[in-house]
């Protein structure tokens, strides 16, 4: 459970906590460390995970898929033995063992390809990857796509795997395009995410709310009802900033049509009036004072005092979060039945909004290959996203919503099934803005919305933050 929590936390929290070592020269020191540390990680500790693996691989059921997907004809890497290093962020169980098993099974099917697994804590991997890309990068590594991917490609160390993936990438749906830049595939997603409101059915009942709100006005009315019943309406992890940004981005999806959003983001200038309107909507929501006490310093996922923890312990009724919430919540409470009390509803619409129907905010997790043995790496990613392996990952609780649509039948939780059917009805899943844009602009957006939540700045200022960051 914990691992999944971490892993999912992962997806969305470039910016949370954790201290990096600091000195006046931290930045420079990091740069210097790059050349040496990446080499060290390549061979140094890799023995441990591999030896662990033998036990995990042999014990569980042999039903695991083995030869399900070898990549067409011919030998991988020309039949020459090669060892690939795999960096992922599932550093605790069940994800850790599940991924190790995938690596071992792949090796069994392709004896000349050995995969050395290197799990990292999520915050570590986010700093390690950019640094490794300045030296010797791992062969397979965590990739969230979008603007950060486009920046990483500039290092020249990422493999264009289009030729190896084109025959099967269609199985992963349109979302796979988030791991492509200029039509070239630079990575493969293994799961998808979508953001919506999670709510406590028991607290809604207590406050006399019969059905989840579908419009902003209904939402604000429900906020009033919950407050009257003495319940904090919405939990918000404002310390981490990205949960703030979810609100503004969702309002934009309701106010602006898809082509306006995409063209404006690509032009790095949000000049259409609909972006300002989205800020006004957010202001209207903020003015109803819907959030938990001290939401500006509340973290998203750490401990019972976090926004997820408040929801888990019935201290707040709603939270705007991704599908990973169902994995984050259970460890934060002693309530064993918490999952059965959770419901999900899509972000409410706004009056006169021009948003494209079926638009949603989301993203996913995936992996990129570096230039060493890209064919073997691509074959591994094909194997990872194949139906039997994704099924196995879902059953092991290492994946919530698989990227491979044919593996979704393995999802058994009724609430997650609802989320899945919502995601399947989504025609346009906009990647979170902070991931879609370059890191600098994404960070600026999160900062701007976070300030807005604290009552600073204007709707116009929010919209301007993108162009301002882009100009620097």
């Amino acid at each position, binding site marked *: 459970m914990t691992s999944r929590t971490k892993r999912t936390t992962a997806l969305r929290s*470039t*910016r*949370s*906590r*954790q*201290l*990096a070592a*600091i*000195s*006046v*020269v*931290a*930045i*420079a*020191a*990091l*740069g*210097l460390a790059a050349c040496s540390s990446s080499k060290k990680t390549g061979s140094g500790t890799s023995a441990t995970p591999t030896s662990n693996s033998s036990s995990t691989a042999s014990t569980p059921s042999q039903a695991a898929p083995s030869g399900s997907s070898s990549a067409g004809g011919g030998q991988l890497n020309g039949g020459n033995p090669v060892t690939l290093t795999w960096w992922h962020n599932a550093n605790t169980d069940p994800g850790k063992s599940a991924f190790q098993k995938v690596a071992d099974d792949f090796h069994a099917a392709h004896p000349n390809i050995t995969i050395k697994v290197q799990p990292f804590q999520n915050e570590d991997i*986010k*700093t390690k990857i*950019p*640094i490794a*890309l*300045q030296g010797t990068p791992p062969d397979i590594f965590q990739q969230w796509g979008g603007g*950060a991917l486009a*920046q*990483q490609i*500039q*290092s*020249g160390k990422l493999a264009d795997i289009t030729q190896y993936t084109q025959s099967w990438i269609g199985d992963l749906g349109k979302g796979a395009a988030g791991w492509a830049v200029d039509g070239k595939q630079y990575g493969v997603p293994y799961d998808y995410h979508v953001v919506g409101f999670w709510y406590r059915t028991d607290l809604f009942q207590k406050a006399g709310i019969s059905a989840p709100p579908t419009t902003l006005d209904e939402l604000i009315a429900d906020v009033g009802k919950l407050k009257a019943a003495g319940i904090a309406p919405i939990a918000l992890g*404002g*310390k*981490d*900033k990205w949960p703030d940004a979810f609100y503004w981005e969702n309002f934009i999806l309701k106010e602006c049509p898809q082509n306006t959003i995409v063209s404006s983001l690509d032009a790095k200038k949000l000049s259409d009036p609909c972006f300002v309107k989205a800020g006004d909507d957010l202001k209207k929501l903020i003015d109803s004072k819907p959030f*938990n*006490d*001290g*939401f*500006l*310093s*509340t973290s998203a996922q750490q*401990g019972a*005092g976090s926004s997820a923890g408040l929801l888990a312990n019935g201290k707040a009724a709603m939270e705007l979060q991704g599908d990973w919430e169902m994995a984050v919540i259970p460890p934060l409470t002693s309530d064993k039945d918490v999952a059965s009390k959770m419901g999900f509803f899509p972000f409410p619409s706004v009056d006169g909004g021009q948003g494209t129907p079926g638009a949603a905010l989301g993203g996913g997790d995936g992996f990129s290959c570096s230039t060493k043995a890209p064919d073997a790496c691509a074959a591994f990613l094909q194997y990872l996203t194949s139906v039997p392996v994704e099924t196995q990952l879902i059953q092991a609780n290492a994946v919530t919503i698989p990227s491979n649509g044919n593996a979704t039948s393995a999802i058994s939780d009724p609430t997650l099934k609802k989320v899945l059917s919502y995601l399947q009805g989504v025609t346009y899943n906009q990647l979170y803005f902070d991931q879609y844009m*370059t*890191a*600098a602009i*994404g*960070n*600026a957006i999160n*900062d701007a919305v*976070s*300030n807005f*939540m*604290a*009552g*600073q700045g204007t709707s116009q200022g929010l919209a301007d933050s993108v162009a301002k960051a882009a100009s*620097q």
Partner: protein
Amino acid sequence: MSTQSRATARSGETLPDVADSARAARQLDRLKGRSSWRQRLELSFLLGPALILFVGFVILPIAVAVYYSIYKWNGFGPLKDVIGFANYKRAFSDSLFIRAIEHNVIIAVLSLVIQLPLSIAIALLINRKMRGRGFLRLVVFAPYVLSAAVTAVTWSLMLQPGGFVDQLFKNAGAGSWVHAWLGDTHIVLYTIFVVASWQYMGFGIVLLLAGLQGIPGELREAAALDGATPWQTTRMVILPLLGPTIRIWIFLSMIGSLQLFDLPWIMTNGGPAGASTTMATYLIDKGIHSYEYGYASAVSVILFVFCFIFALVYQRFALRRDTQGSLTRMAG
């Protein structure tokens, strides 16, 4: 200290003598040749490792940061976009960075005005012979032993809405004093200052205690014989003699305030709305989160220059007397 400097001054009178014999000795050495070689070998053997570490981990990184700081660079690919001093200009025109500097200065001033008198008072108190002195000293020093990360997480838990601190106020009948300690933009910086004081004051107190131990008891007795009140003794005898220690305390505290990072970073991420951003959290945010390594390098250089200038000026005007005799200088 002062006796020492007087001793050096007196030895200065006999300097020609010493210099002559030294010159003679050196000539002798040169004649021998061998021993000077040995000296050099010894020197390089003893200084080498330290020098390599210092150059590799201090000088070189600073130089590299200066080099990166003139580029617009996201950390990937080659350095090619030279923008000169634009990064520095940007830093000083970014209101958040200016606020970060203000926050550092506020913390530094508060340390001087609140922490220092408090530390001296506590040090004087637990320097007296009394029962449980050892235990008190332990209690005072204990927080310093914790890592900043542990302190930050523990205090975050205690300060969260409805947490330990809020309960404490409520049970003491001061429920109206309860605030969003970390969530209120007007309060958060002072909350962090309190936590920082809790953590670091113990170290300063131990430093001051050591200074107090160095003051001979005879002086106190003599003052008492002359009819000085305890307050007069403290003010006229103890505090002046504690001067060197206090000056070192101020030095460490100022540098610490300028570089404050771990507590705000873990407790608030520099928020809300930048209300607890310091120069160090700002630069890490720009580097690690925004991939603006060039810009972050410029900010790190600015922070370095601030600390360096402060250190030099302070060394020149405040610490000079204290360190005289303990620092070697080039002959001539």
